[in-house]
């Protein structure tokens, strides 16, 4: 029926074509198309072609590594992880006879040390800067703006080198004339010393965690009570002392103590000393990341509808309460994905410690390669560690993001 209609249509249009030719054309149209015109087959063919090209390139790369390593007599396996590392890391218990894998662990821990502390500090500083950028105070507004515009537009490597070579190594005094804040802080060009906990660290961290959970529960209970009765909750007045009391007495029971730095002639005794490389890297990373976080926080605060602030103002909330309870919670919700990106960057940027000989992952890897570890597997291992860290961080950020989104 349809075919007859088509034939008539085509026959009418093309006066030169015979009915036979029209029949053939129709047969072509109604039959299954040939494979080079079948969209589904074409798409699979195309994808298989792309895949095989990629696999082929990867195979060539692998083969080159194999052949080149054979020619040079270098193995391409991970046996080197068991061999002695042959180097030491300043202020680290690693011995030269310990295996390369222990060196990798220490390097990775050093990366985490600078990344985690940097993450906390740069978030605090970044939020302060972001709020300062929108402050009603002309001086604060412009100071934070100058800070952001300077730091954001110079290379991080320059900041790292400046903070190490020009500040920590040049400006800080020798040990005997250390800068001192009583028992709280001692600073010299051999390191920064702060009070620290003695005794078992894991136990202490567990204690802090338990105390935190209890304090949190008390805070929630006070909030609930306040909501039910209408009395002021005074959550902080309850939860903070409880937290401090539990930590204090827990530490006494667990045998944790406090050690404070003091200057004994030319040596610093007690406390915990941050290596100058660590300190310089930390300062540079925090300054750099905070300038980026500041811009993110500013953007997110501006994204909160103005009416929210005005409504809070109409309820006679103070400017601190408006920020703390109304604006920031909504702003940070917007900011989470971009903040996550900055945290990822921070972890990766900690690799710049390499340049000032801070023994983080990259520096450890290149040092073991200098000590006759095979380059390709060692770098592969390093890349995998970074990749895994990035994936974990972004999974955490995604989780936080999902948790913080308003249910729609």
């Amino acid at each position: 029926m349809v075919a007859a209609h088509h034939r008539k249509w085509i026959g009418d249009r093309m006066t030169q074509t015979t009915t036979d030719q029209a029949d053939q054309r129709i047969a072509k149209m109604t039959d299954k198309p040939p494979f080079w015109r079948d969209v589904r087959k074409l798409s699979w063919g195309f994808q298989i072609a792309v895949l095989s090209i990629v696999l082929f390139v990867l195979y060539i790369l692998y083969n080159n590594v194999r052949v080149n390593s054979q020619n040079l007599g270098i193995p391409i396996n991970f046996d080197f992880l068991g061999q002695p590392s042959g180097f030491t890391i300043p202020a680290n218990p690693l011995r030269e006879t310990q295996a390369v894998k222990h060196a990798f662990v220490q390097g990775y821990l050093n990366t985490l040390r600078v990344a985690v502390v940097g993450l906390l500090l740069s978030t605090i500083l970044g939020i302060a800067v972001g709020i300062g950028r929108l402050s009603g105070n002309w001086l604060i507004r412009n100071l934070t703006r100058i800070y952001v515009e300077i730091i954001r537009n110079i290379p991080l490597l320059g900041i790292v080198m400046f903070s190490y070579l020009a500040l920590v190594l040049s400006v800080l005094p020798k040990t005997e004339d250390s800068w001192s804040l009583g028992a709280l802080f001692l600073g010299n060009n051999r390191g920064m010393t702060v009070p620290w906990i003695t005794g078992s660290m894991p136990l202490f961290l567990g204690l802090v965690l338990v105390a935190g959970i209890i304090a949190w529960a008390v805070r929630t209970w006070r909030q609930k009570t306040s909501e039910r009765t209408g009395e002021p909750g005074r959550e902080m007045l309850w939860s903070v002392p409880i937290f401090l009391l539990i930590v204090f007495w827990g530490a006494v029971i667990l045998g944790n103590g406090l050690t404070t730095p003091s200057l004994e002639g030319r040596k610093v005794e007690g406390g915990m000393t941050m290596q100058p490389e660590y300190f310089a890297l930390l300062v540079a990373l925090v300054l750099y990341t905070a300038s980026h976080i500041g811009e993110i926080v500013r953007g997110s605060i501006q994204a909160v509808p103005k009416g929210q602030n005005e409504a809070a103002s109409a309820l006679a909330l103070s400017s601190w309460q408006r920020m703390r309870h109304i604006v920031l919670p909504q702003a940070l919700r917007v900011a989470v994905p971009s903040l996550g990106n900055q945290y990822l960057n921070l972890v990766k940027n900690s690799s710049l410690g390499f340049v000032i000989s801070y023994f983080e992952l990259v520096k450890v890897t290149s040092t073991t390669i200098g000590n006759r570890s095979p380059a390709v597997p060692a770098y592969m291992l390093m890349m995998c560690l970074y990749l895994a860290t990035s994936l974990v961080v972004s999974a955490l950020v995604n989780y936080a993001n999902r948790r913080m989104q308003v249910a729609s």
Partner: protein
Amino acid sequence: MISAWLKKNLFRSTGDSILTVVAGGLLGYAAFRMLRFVFVTGRWTVIKVNLNLLITGAWPQEELWRLTTVILALAAMAGLFMGLAAKQTALEAADDDDVEPMTAGERARSLVGRLWPAAGTVLLLLLLTETAGPWLLVAGVIVVSAVGWFVGKQLPLKAKGALTGGGVVLFAVLIWFLTLGVSWNSWGGMVLNLFLAAISIVLCFPFGVVLALGRRSEYPIVRGICTAYVELFRGVPLLGLLLMANVALGFFIPRGLVPGNVVKAIVVFTLFSAAYVAEIVRGGLQSVPRGQLEAGRAMGMSPITVTRKIILPQALRNVIPSLVGQFISLFKDTTLAGAALGMTDLLTGGQVLTAQKEFRGQGLIAETLIFVLLLFWAGSFTMSQESQRLESRLGIGER
């Protein structure tokens, strides 16, 4: 009047006043230290003596004419582009009644407001030189770009595509022309940073667009490959990749084909930045409503035509500021090439200066680093200001 301003902006409440006093005190002290360093205690001879080394690296004196020619050619090209863009803006403004054309005074003020960091830095550099050559070069750049601007204003708007293509070809020819004089592995100084950044930007942009399209494609295998590539390169640090290129690249390619340091750096920068460009472009692609694609298809356009003529122009326009931001960070990241591959770029070269015989052991690192970072800052800051201006002019986020 002044007291009202002070009260409103600095002393609104007790807390505010304390903040102002503390911050003002800190600022005053910092400014005092800074000014004293710049004008009194800083020893800037090391910069003055080594200015050539910082800017052009170990570029031989007799080959400098090549560099001069290239700079002038680039200035002419930039002038042409800006002239054409100005013409387009003028035409659009004529269509749009709301936009008042700028008066000459306003234009001059906006130019000064936008370009003072770059202009100031160039002036500082000129004041530090002791020969007339750089002054002549700057004058030449101004004249040539002005001529280019006027010629660009006469060109038809359609010439934009041809001009872009011509610009890329000219860029390649110019680099070849430069390498005739000095092989690029012995380049150094700021020229090296600019060159690495420019060539990597030109290369990573198309690659990134392809990756972004691949990541949004309907073919699962293509999508998987592009996603894996992007996530892989975004998950590892650039410095690690550069070090790996330095030590381990020789294993991945047949012996005898191992390239020089500059090629290694360009390859790494391109592969790395392409992943970031891809993510930015993907965001842009997502911002284009699906109806655009459907409308294009309904007009009987092929998917490729729809992408090329309808989707990409809108997507890229939406992400110009982020792209510029990425290119700025690429420019800043070129310093890592110095640290990882041992090239004497601006930053590493500046650090090396303090080890010269007549300057060794004098603690001049602060002086050189501040000078070097000032140059980087002027470049990046100007670029980011321009991209913000572009953002507000395109009205992104205001619709």
